[in-house]
């Protein structure tokens, strides 16, 4: 997941003044976090463009919570590369800047296009895009996936455990092998109850008819 930034700025100076200032802006009161500056590559192309690579080292200022989470990153400054193409014929300049260390923690990339302001040719506009990404986002997704997979596996174990203990308890109650399930024993109990009831009804019927016959015999004697 990448955070995207888009912005536009205007400098009230002409394009050639801005391009010249670009190379002279360090140090300035707002650049205390920039420690060193070096041109590490420069060439003029056949079509009269100036290609440059500038290396900057910057302080690595993090909030306290980040310092605690990433102690290994605290001691190292950030190395930043800025590649640029100056095209004086078209009066434009393009820059691409990114950090080359601390990359496993976070990468910030910035692309700028400098050109003559569309409203005022004595001004310069800067179109700035940036992308902020972190591989930690992938780590947090992996942690979530792992957590869910482990949870599902534990649910399976929970249910198996339940079935085991239930079967065991039913086996002890009925004096039968613990392999029978609650459903099976319940069924059997039902059948048994039916049979007993039927037998009781028959017996009662039998007793009743026997009693009736005896009474008849007694009455006959007294007449």
């Amino acid at each position, binding site marked *: 997941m990448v955070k995207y930034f888009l912005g536009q700025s205007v400098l009230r100076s002409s394009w*050639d003044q801005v*391009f*010249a200032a670009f*190379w*002279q802006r*360090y*140090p300035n009161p707002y650049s205390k976090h*920039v*420690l*060193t*500056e*070096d*041109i*590490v*590559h*420069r060439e*003029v192309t056949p079509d*009269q463009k*100036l*290609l440059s*690579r500038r*290396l900057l*080292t910057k302080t690595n200022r993090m909030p306290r919570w980040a310092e605690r989470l*990433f102690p*290994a*990153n605290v001691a*190292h400054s950030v*190395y930043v*590369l800025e*590649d640029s*193409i*100056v095209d*004086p*014929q078209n009066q434009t300049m393009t820059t*691409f800047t*990114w950090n*080359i*260390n*601390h*990359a*496993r*923690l976070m*990468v910030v*990339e910035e692309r700028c296009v400098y050109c003559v302001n569309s409203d005022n040719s004595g001004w310069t506009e800067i179109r700035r895009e940036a992308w902020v990404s972190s591989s930690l986002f992938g780590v947090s997704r992996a942690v979530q996936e792992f957590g869910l997979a482990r949870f599902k596996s534990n649910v399976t174990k929970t249910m198996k455990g339940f079935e085991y203990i239930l079967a065991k308890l039913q086996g002890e109650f009925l004096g039968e092998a613990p392999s029978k399930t609650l459903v099976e024993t319940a069924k059997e109990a039902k059948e048994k109850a039916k049979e007993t009831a039927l037998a009781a009804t028959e017996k009662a019927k039998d007793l009743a008819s026997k009693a009736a016959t005896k009474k008849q015999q007694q009455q006959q004697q007294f007449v």
Partner: protein
Amino acid sequence: MNSVGEACTDMKREYDQCFNRWFAEKFLKGDSSGDPCTDLFKRYQQCVQKEIPIEGLEFMGHGKEKPENSS
């Protein structure tokens, strides 16, 4: 501004002065007559290339190479 290699700072400043003059007075005006700073640049580069912790990164792109003190 300091160079990443302390010993190179003076050479860097000399080169920068030469470059800034040529850039504003010649290059931006479309004057393609020679670059007067090549010697100063060479001297500066000889010093600084030893100090920089990066190698072979693609121009205008982010390279896969990792510097020594990466974290």
